[in-house]
Structures are given as structure tokens and as C-alpha cells.
């Protein structure tokens, strides 16, 4: 049969299909790539390692009961108190204000960009949102403290502390608008055109189509966007450090100064708590709590996405 092969350069059909030369490079590359991917695992392990030991030591000195059972927070006061609720409440309150601002505005902006805007308009506005997303949080903090708070103090009927949860929350909200808007827009754009056409073909208006077909179909993506935004808000440090302050009292009053978990870590971490002191370990205990909260939210988000993702694909 080989004789039938009249093309000199062509491989003879009887030449073996076995590998002509070994390819160690391919395997080496794969190992290198895997190593790069494992850096992320190492990062998580590093975070856990950094947090774990001081946290365990902390809880050998402070009972979980005191940590979660009391509303008095003052690890650096004497006598120290370790009821974590004031800073959790502050964190949740600021996060709540932030998402009250960011979810409607972000979602509305996303619907506009995905369903209404012409490609040209979208091409202009998406980058602008990206710019907003890139603004350093110190800048938001500065703006909140020196512009928004005085402004609110003038126009609001109730009194505001010079640093307060309200303006910090508002600004954290503005900070996460681009996250909500941009990721939700991605999710909505990923909804197949055919679904929209199906709705229009039934005589639905644009508003109905957007609200009752596109939004639900993009639900998992939107949930993921919102959860990412929430974790950003909950962990935001600079805005709250500058604009919400460090007062750790148990209050729900948004006009009051309050310390979030991140703000506590920042102030105690840059302060003088000696290594090994209980105050120092507190930083890590709060850090662990923050990390676990983020982790839990993301796990939930991943499950949501998995449950609903692309069922219509």
C-alpha cells in the first residue's frame, strides 16, 4: 500500500502513529499553569493561617458566649469587654444603607443599559461606570466626611454626628453601584434574545419584557452581583474609617458615629495593641468573623448561581 503513496513528503500510511518525539514541554507547562492556579489556594491558606492561631488563642481567653452574648464592645478599655454585637450591627447597618442605595439604582441602571440603551450609549456609559468603580475608597471617604455629611447636617431635620453611619452608608452604596450595575447588566445581556422576542411577539411592552422576562431570567446573575456588592460593602474599610468613625456603642441610630468590623480592625491594627495581648488577638478574631461572613455569602451565591444558571441555554 505504501507504493500507492505518490506524495514524497507525505507520511506513509504505514508509518506508526506513535509520538515522533517526546513532549516534556507540554507536561512542564501544565505543571506551571497549575502552580499559578494554586497560588489562589495558597492565598486562602495564608489568610486562614494568619487568622487561625490568634483566633483560637482569643477564644481560649474569651468565651464564645461573651463574644456573641453581650452588646458591650471595648477590647481596649479596662476592664475589656468583648461583646461583638455593636460592631456587627454597625457593619450590617451601613451595609443595609448601602444596598438600599445600590440595588435600586444599580439594577435600574443595568436595565437601562441592557434593554433600552443603544449600543453607542452603552459603549459610553459602561466605561463611565467602570471609572466610578475604580475610584479609591479614600476618596469616597473624604467626600463623605467633608462634603456629604455637612450637606446632610444642613438639610436633615435630625442631628448627625460629624462622623456617622448614614453618610458612610450612602457613599458605600455609591461605591457598589457599579458592581451591581455592571454584573447585572452582564447577566441581563446574557439572557438569550429569543426570550425577549418571545415576549414582544406576544404583545408585551418593553417595560413588561424587561421586568417580567429578562429580570427573572437573569436572576442568578443578579443575585451573584448583589452578593458580591454586599461583601464589598461589609468589608469596606476606608470609607467607614473616615466617615463613620470608631465609636463602638450599641446603637441603631444611623445619625450616630459607629465602628464597623473593618474599621475596628483598621484602627486596632494600626494602633498600639502589643503582639500577644488579648487586644491584639481581638483583631484576628474580628478578622476571622469577617472572613467567615464573606465566605458564607459567597458559598450561598455560588449555590444560587449553580441552581439557576443557564437553565434556559
Amino acid at each position, binding site marked *: 500500500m505504501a507504493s500507492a503513496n505518490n506524495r514524497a513528503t507525505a507520511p506513509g500510511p504505514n508509518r506508526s502513529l506513535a509520538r515522533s518525539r517526546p513532549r516534556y514541554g*507540554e507536561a512542564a507547562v501544565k505543571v506551571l*499553569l497549575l502552580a499559578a492556579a494554586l497560588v489562589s489556594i495558597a492565598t486562602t491558606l495564608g489568610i486562614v493561617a494568619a487568622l487561625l492561631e490568634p483566633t483560637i488563642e482569643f477564644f481560649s481567653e474569651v468565651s464564645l458566649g461573651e463574644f456573641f452574648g453581650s452588646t458591650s464592645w471595648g477590647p481596649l478599655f479596662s476592664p475589656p469587654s468583648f461583646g461583638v454585637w455593636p460592631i456587627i450591627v454597625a457593619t450590617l447597618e451601613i451595609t443595609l444603607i448601602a444596598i438600599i442605595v445600590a440595588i435600586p439604582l444599580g439594577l435600574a441602571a443595568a436595565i*437601562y443599559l441592557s434593554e*433600552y440603551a443603544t449600543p453607542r450609549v452603552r459603549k459610553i456609559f459602561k466605561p463611565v461606570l467602570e471609572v466610578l468603580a475604580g475610584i479609591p475608597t*479614600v476618596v469616597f471617604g473624604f467626600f463623605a466626611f467633608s462634603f456629604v455629611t455637612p450637606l446632610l447636617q444642613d438639610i436633615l431635620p435630625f442631628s448627625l454626628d460629624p462622623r456617622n453611619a448614614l453618610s458612610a452608608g450612602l457613599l458605600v452604596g455609591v461605591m457598589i453601584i*457599579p458592581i451591581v450595575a455592571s454584573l447585572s447588566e452582564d447577566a441581563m445581556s446574557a439572557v438569550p434574545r429569543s426570550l425577549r422576542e418571545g415576549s414582544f411577539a406576544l404583545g408585551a411592552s418593553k417595560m413588561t419584557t424587561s421586568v417580567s422576562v429578562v429580570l427573572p431570567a437573569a436572576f442568578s446573575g443578579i443575585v451573584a452581583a448583589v452578593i458580591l456588592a454586599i461583601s*464589598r460593602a461589609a468589608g469596606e474599610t476606608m470609607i467607614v474609617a473616615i466617615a463613620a468613625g470608631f465609636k463602638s456603642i450599641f446603637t441603631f441610630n444611623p445619625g450616630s458615629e459607629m465602628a464597623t468590623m473593618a474599621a475596628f480592625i483598621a484602627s486596632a491594627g494600626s494602633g498600639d495593641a502589643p503582639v500577644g495581648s488579648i487586644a491584639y488577638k481581638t483583631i484576628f478574631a474580628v478578622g476571622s468573623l469577617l472572613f467567615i461572613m464573606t465566605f458564607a455569602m459567597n458559598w450561598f451565591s455560588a449555590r444560587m448561581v449553580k441552581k439557576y444558571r443557564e437553565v434556559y441555554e
Partner: protein
Amino acid sequence: MAILSTPRSQVDLVGKGRPLREHLFRIALLSSLAIALIFLALLLAYTLTEGWPRLDSRLWENFPSVRRPETAGVLSGITGTLWIIGLTALMALPTGVLAAIYLEEYADNTRWYNRLIELNIANLAAVPSIVYGILGLGIIARWLDFGFTVMTGAVTISLLVLPIVIISAREAIRAVPPSIREGSLALGATQWQTIYRQVLPASIPGIATGSILALSRAIGEAAPFLMLGAATLVRFNPDGVWSSFTVLPLQIYNLISQSREEFHILAAAAIVVLLAILLLMNSLAIWLRNRYQKRW
């Protein structure tokens, strides 16, 4: 059936009063977007007017000073930021791109460890930056004994932006149609040849865009540096990776904390510089995206 009873010649195709609600909805959507934009404009206008008196070359030629707020600058912050960003680009970008290639091109999603890596990256993207500060403090500065140096800052920030780089690089790689890969493999190219010669070149604009956006996040970070105790008054430029340093956002934070009004003006001016750098980077990203956007 309704339609059948309609006299044929008088089918009325005129709509019934929908438009008002539709218009209001549209206006509501637009104003939401507008609020975000107005806010941006307000912020820019405010910092610009605040910082205007100090927006001159002293800002980037002089070191910070506690004695002479009128002439103090933020030079060491600018150079520190450049050092950190440069090193971050060197460390985070290659690692991120390689990891993204692994996840997109090699990882078998049915394997638990690959799914774990993915979930882990999504989670890391959401971990607060202050927690990275703890990582930097506990592991990099103390355990690895890198001290409070440029290197510690850069490694910490690299780890912070790594998930963002990976996620955006994956998107860019995913945007390369599978048909290109199949075409290459069908010609007897190995997998790495296919990646190196087809997938990477085609996704480079996307990777670059994502990288720039990730780096602009890195530029604005201050919280991890608070934990790393970067010095507040640094009157020199870092001369190597083991040097002390400060970064612009941290300097801004410190300036805001000063009680003298002159320092606030200086802070606003420094913010304008920081925003200008960011706008520049963003414009570059947008330009890249528009210039190289592929239509397959």
C-alpha cells in the same frame, strides 16, 4: 373568537394608553443612571475646587512635610505607588494569566480540586481588603520576615488583585471561539501550541483591559497598608524592594486626618492626582477594548 367577530375592514391596530407608564419607567431608569453620573461629576468638581490652590508642580516635586503645609507635596506617595503597581504588575499579571489559562484550557471541571480552585477564586474576590492586610501583616511581613517594605506591600496587593486578574483574563480567554482551538488542534498542534499561538494572541486585548482595571483597583487601595503600618511621613523615594515606603492613598488618608486646613487642600489636590492617574488607566483600557474588540 374575538378576532373573528371583528369586521375585517375595521381592524383597529391603535394601541391603548400604555405609553405614560412606559415613559415613566424609562425616565426612572435613566435617572438612576444619571444619579450615579451626577455623583461622579460632583465628586470630581468638589475635589477639583478644593484642591485647586495646590494643584501645581510642588505637589509632585516635594516630599511631604509637617512643617510647611503650604509647600508640602506627595512625591514619596507617588513613587511608592508606582513601585507597588510596577511590582504588582510583574507578579500578579503573569500569575493571574497563567492561572486563567489553566482554568480555561486545562482544568477538567468535573474534578473536585478544579471546582475548589474556582470557588476559592470567587471567594477571594470578595474578601475585604483589610483581611488581606492581616494576611500581609501576619504571613508576609512577620512569618516570611519581609518586614514592612515595598516587597511586603507589593506581594499583599498582588494577592489582593490576583482573583480580579484571573476572572477577567478567563473572560477574555473564553471569548476566543472554540472553533479557533479546534481548527488549530485539527492541524496537529499540541495544546500548548494552540494556546500560545492562537488563544493568547487573540485574547491579549481583553486580558490587557482586565489587567488595567485590576491594577487601577490596586492603585486606590489603602486599607491593607494601614495594617502593614506603612510609615506616614516618608521623605524619600524607595530605592529598592526592601525599602520603606508609603503610598498615595495612605498619604491622602493621613492628610485628611490632619487638623490644619492646608493639609485638607493638599489632600484634595493629591486626590486629583490619584484620580487623574486612574482616569488615564481607564481610558487606556477603554481604548484597548474598542481598538481590538474582535468580531468573530
